[in-house]
């Protein structure tokens, strides 16, 4: 019964998460409103656009009951601009979509896949968290709803390669302390690089464990004694170790 998988999400699980993203559809048939477990689905009245979760949109699309409007960022023009940005800035990913205004303090902020970053009227100039999975799924199931599907597919692949190169390059700056910033990273990219990145950080930490323990003990001692005169000695130690 216990799940025999190591920590971290598998690609199908990430795709499952991505299927909760909201997308815009143009229904071709009427459908009454539905009370689902995850909330109410509004009635579908052709030809009014409606935002529904991706899993439902794919189901309707497969049965030819609706057309999917690709998200605002998923077209050749926007992707070209984003790709240029990715190539220009060698060390960082292109910035993620602008955050919605901060909610009041007593409610939990929403985050992907529950932000409307993939609807037809979302921001056209930023890759959302599930960009790769969503792009692939839409191109596979609804390529006839795109204007230039082959061009979009090519651009997605280019983007993926540029970004993978950045991920691989980041291995140089990993160290035992962790604390490594990855703004703009995508869901599938996290899944792909998780075992490598965390493996390197954890491995380095284990190598430096005894030194770190010494330092922790010393810092605690200093805190108790209320002075910090040994900082200089510590630097010398570090030189010897290297």
């Amino acid at each position, binding site marked *: 019964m216990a799940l025999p998988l190591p*920590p971290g999400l598998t690609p199908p*699980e990430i795709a499952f998460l991505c299927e*909760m993203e909201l997308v815009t559809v143009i229904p071709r048939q009427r459908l009454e409103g539905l009370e*689902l*477990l995850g909330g109410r689905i509004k009635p579908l009245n052709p030809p009014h656009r409606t935002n529904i979760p991706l899993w439902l949109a794919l189901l309707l699309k497969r049965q030819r009951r609706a057309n999917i409007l690709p998200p605002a960022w998923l077209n050749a023009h926007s992707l070209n601009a984003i790709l240029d940005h990715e190539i220009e800035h060698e060390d960082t990913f292109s910035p993620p979509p602008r955050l919605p205004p901060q909610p009041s303090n007593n*409610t939990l902020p929403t985050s992907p896949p529950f932000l409307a970053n993939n609807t037809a009227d979302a921001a056209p100039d930023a890759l959302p968290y599930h960009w790769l999975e969503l792009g692939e799924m839409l191109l596979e199931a609804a390529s006839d709803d795109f204007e230039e599907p082959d061009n979009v597919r090519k651009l997605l692949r280019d983007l993926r390669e540029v970004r993978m190169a950045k991920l691989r390059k980041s291995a140089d700056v990993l160290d035992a302390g*962790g604390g490594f910033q990855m703004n703009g990273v995508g869901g599938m990219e996290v899944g792909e690089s998780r075992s490598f990145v*965390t493996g390197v950080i954890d491995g380095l930490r284990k190598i430096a464990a005894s030194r770190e323990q010494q330092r922790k003990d010393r*810092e605690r001692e200093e805190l108790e004694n209320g002075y910090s005169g040994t900082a200089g000695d510590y630097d010398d130690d570090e030189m010897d170790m290297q």
Partner: protein
Amino acid sequence: MDIDDLLAEVAVDSVPRELRDLQELTRCWVAERVAPEILPWPSELMDRVLDRIRRQIELVEDQTGDMNPKTNFKLIIIQTELERFKFLVRSFLRARLNKIDQHPLHIQSLHDASLDMLQPLLSHSEYQYLTSHQSLLAAHYSTSFLGQFPASLQRLDDITGGISMIDKPDEDKAVFVRVLRDIGDIAVEGTDRRFNMKRGDVWVVRWSAVKKWAIGTGTGDLELI
């Protein structure tokens, strides 16, 4: 506070309970799959979700007799969604069972310590599983080989001699987190690492360094991804 904030506040508070529960459950599932240690059991959330699933199953059973193609398609949608929910719940529980199997004695002591707190670590059935599984294992070990050892070597939770027999998860493992509210400066104990966590950031950090801000174990200012 400008008009955008006001609108956002209204919008967030008007999110229906069902959708918020789905968001919370999804977060719990991801966190449980990613975190190195077991997280407190979200009892109220699970009660609500399981109750809703039970009612939805009853609805499906009621309506399957109806052969009208229109209601039939509605039923397909409802069932598809039901299966998605069931997958979430099942995967969440199985991830927890896996952790219970790996570190039973450690989790048992943590659970006992958490009983006075607002949120116990394990659900009732999980605790039952843990104790009965442990007693079966202990009985099996003692009949198959432990019984032939000297009495002083028979314990499974010996902590004398400076080395504990009780396995613990590695709490310093690196995790991916997304910051939901501004946190400020964070220092990683034992290293020179200092950094500033702002809303919307994604960081790879030690679990032990950010645990007190995580959803489930802390203030809820960041989530695991």
